[in-house]
C-alpha cells in the first residue's frame, strides 16, 4: 500500500505529542494498514471529527477500548477512573480536538486549507465507526503501556493511499 505520508504524518505526530504532553504517556506508532485488512481492537468509545477543505472532505476518528481510555483519562486529568462516566466521555473528543489542531496547523502550512471543526463522541460496546467515503479508510495504530488504540482517517476527493 502506498501512502501519502505528507497527509498522514501530522496526525501521527499530533497523537505522539498530545499523549506525551497532555497525558504524560509515551506512544509508539505501529504499522499503518487499511481498515478491515489488519488487526482489530474492541472499540468502546470514539471521538469523531469531520474533515472539510476546499478540495476534499472526510472524517477522522480516535478509537479506544474501555481500559485504555480509562488509563489515558486518569493520566490526563490526574484522577483515577474505574468506569467511563458521563463527565469523562468528552475526553475522547478533547484528545481528538488537540490532535486535529496540531495536524491542521501543519497541513495548512502546506496549503491543505482544512477548516476548523468540533468533534463528537460516540460510545457503545463493539463500536464501529463508518467513514462515509468511497476511498479506503486508513488505520493508524498506537501502542501504549496500557494497550493499543487507533486513529482512523477517511477522505473523499483526496486520496491518501
Amino acid at each position, binding site marked *: 500500500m502506498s501512502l501519502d505520508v505528507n497527509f498522514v504524518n501530522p496526525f501521527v505526530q499530533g497523537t505522539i505529542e498530545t499523549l506525551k*504532553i497532555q497525558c504524560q504517556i509515551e506512544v509508539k506508532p505501529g504499522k499503518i494498514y487499511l481498515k478491515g485488512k489488519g488487526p482489530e481492537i474492541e472499540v468502546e468509545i470514539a471521538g469523531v471529527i469531520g474533515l472539510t477543505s476546499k478540495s476534499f472532505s472526510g472524517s477522522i476518528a480516535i478509537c479506544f477500548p474501555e481500559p485504555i481510555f480509562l488509563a489515558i483519562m486518569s493520566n490526563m*486529568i490526574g484522577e483515577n477512573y474505574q468506569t467511563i462516566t458521563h*463527565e469523562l466521555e468528552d475526553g475522547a473528543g*478533547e484528545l481528538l*480536538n*488537540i490532535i486535529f*489542531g496540531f495536524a491542521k496547523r501543519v497541513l*495548512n502550512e502546506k496549503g491543505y486549507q482544512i477548516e*476548523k471543526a*468540533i468533534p463528537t463522541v460516540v460510545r457503545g460496546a463493539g463500536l464501529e465507526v463508518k467513514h462515509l467515503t468511497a476511498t479506503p479508510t486508513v488505520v493508524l495504530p498506537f501502542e501504549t503501556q496500557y494497550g493499543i488504540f487507533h486513529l482512523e482517517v477517511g477522505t473523499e476527493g483526496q486520496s491518501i493511499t
Partner: protein
Amino acid sequence: MFPASTKTLVVDDMLTMRKIVRNCLKDLGLTHVTEASDGQQAWVEIEKADATDEPYEFIVSDWNMPNMNGLDLLKKVRADEKIKSIPFILLTAEAEKSQVLEAVNAGVSGYVVKPFTPAVFTEKIKAVYSNAGKK
C-alpha cells in the same frame, strides 16, 4: 500571582478540559471558579456577575466552541467599558499564526496552545497577572 479570592470564569465545551483547568487553578490557590460550556453561556454569567456588582476578574476560554466561540467572547468583553480590562487567556488547539495574530489584535492577554503541561499553563497565568499589574 492572582489573589486566592480572584473570581474566575472557565469556558470550554469539553467538561474534561474544564476539569483540567480547574485543577491547575486550584493548585495555584484559585478556587473561586465558575464554569461555562460556550461563549454564550459565559456571557450570561458575566452579565449576572456585573448585575451583582461582583464582576469576573479573570477569564480562561477555549476558542472553538458552539454557539459563541472564544474569540467572539473576547471581542465582546473588550468592547464592554465595565469589563474591557479583564485578563483573558485563550487556551486552544488552534495554533496557526494567523489565528494567534487575530487573537492578539482582539486584545487577548495570553495564548496557550493545547497540548499543554500544567507548568506551561501556570507560567502563562503568572505572566498575564504580572502584565495586568503594569497597566
